[in-house]
């Protein structure tokens, strides 16, 4: 196995240059895919025979929920990488990703609540999925608060990495523990590996929207990481040249 990419990824300078090439294309593609997926779902996908047109919220709700969990998974992995290998890029990633994840969790919660009202007749239920997304949101906010409060950079790195890793253990436990209560929420409507339960014309725009959200988030996190790299590596010569040549 070739590990060179792993070591390269650990170098802020290399990452900056590599991501400069990719951030804008990925972001634009994400925006485009999101618009296509959401527009298609909003205007062209057939009406659901049970829920009517209200189900169209799915094209925002499901991608956001998927992303909220994926983002946290990536935070946990980054935290682990930092605790084990002390890789410089990991805390930069955590700091950049946490606000995005929080936004995704907030979108999932809000859209879910608004969807739930006409469908189930209630804004909120304490079921496993909803509760775990709420806890996810709280964890994101905790990491952001920790990051903003700790002034010592080394301590902030260590602390956010630890909370990320612990959250990764905590989330499945919470999901499992809340599962005892009767769950109102429909079973997962989206899976890449299983045959979709919904008709193709509904499922395809959803897939495109999910891909769009993924690319959007990747593009955003690259930009945020770049800003953070500039700030943390401000004492190196290459950052100085980059900033001085930048016309702002």
């Amino acid at each position, binding site marked *: 196995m070739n590990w060179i990419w792993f070591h390269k990824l650990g170098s802020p300078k290399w990452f900056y240059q590599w991501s400069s090439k990719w951030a804008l294309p990925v972001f634009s593609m994400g925006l485009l895919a999101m618009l296509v997926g959401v527009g298609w779902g909003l205007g062209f996908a057939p009406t659901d025979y049970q829920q009517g047109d209200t189900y169209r919220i799915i094209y925002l709700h499901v991608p956001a929920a998927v992303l909220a969990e994926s983002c946290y998974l990536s935070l946990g992995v980054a935290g682990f990488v930092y605790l084990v290998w002390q890789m410089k890029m990991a805390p930069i990633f955590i700091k950049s990703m946490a606000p995005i994840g929080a936004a995704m969790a907030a979108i999932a919660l809000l859209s879910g609540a608004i969807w739930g009202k006409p469908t189930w007749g209630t804004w909120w239920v304490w079921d496993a999925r909803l509760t775990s997304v709420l806890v996810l949101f709280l964890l994101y906010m*905790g990491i952001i608060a920790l990051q903003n409060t700790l002034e*010592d950079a080394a301590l902030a790195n260590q602390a956010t990495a630890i909370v990320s890793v612990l959250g990764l253990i905590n989330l499945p436990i919470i999901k499992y*523990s809340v599962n005892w209560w009767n769950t109102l929420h429909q079973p997962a409507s989206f899976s890449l590996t299983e045959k979709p339960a919904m008709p193709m014309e509904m499922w395809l725009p959803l897939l495109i929207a999910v891909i769009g959200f993924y690319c959007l988030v990747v593009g955003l996190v690259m930009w945020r990481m770049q800003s953070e790299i500039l700030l943390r590596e401000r004492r190196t010569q290459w950052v100085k040249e980059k900033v001085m040549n930048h016309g702002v």
Partner: protein
Amino acid sequence: MTYFSFFKAECLALFYTKQRVVNALLFFVMVVVLFPLGIDPSAEFLSPVAGGIIWCAAALSVVISVESMYKESYLDGTLTQLIVSGLSLPWLILIKVGVYWGAMMLPLLLLTPVFAQMLFLPSDSLFMLLATLLLGTPGLFLIGSIGAALTVSLRQGAMLMVLLILPFYFPIIIFSTAAIKAMQLGLPYGGLLALLGAISLLALVVSPVMTSLCIKASVR
């Protein structure tokens, strides 16, 4: 310094500052009293939720008393001496958490039957409540220790610490109250107790290592 002399010093120091433990217990009592006064003092309301009330009060008083666990040692430099003592820091932390757990939980376990009675907890569930407290609270202290170490260098870190740590208390509280409820309904509860024990065991393995990482990053 040896592990035993550290244990002895911790016990003595906690004994001299016993007012802190008393304060935490008073806080526990206050929170318990809030529920009947604030919601409904009738036996029909309190009886099914008594276990949950006592658990929430216990979790809150634990998180508050654990918050300042390392603060004084951080300020007077004893934390530095622990790191450079040549002894294993995770073991020292485990000893400290153990001492705190003993000092706080023994009186709390003695208080619990009294409050269970006042909240009309059915007497056959009392045994279950005590069992969940015994199994679950080590987890609360161990997880809290990580939070205390994360925020030890902050002057106003209490709020942040509570904010960070409470989400990690959710599973313990859920499993405990679920076990009490299961017993009241005549459902099997062995699995829930086993899960509770498993969480505390996991915390026992993870917490000292994570706490020592945070302490080493905080002491500069």
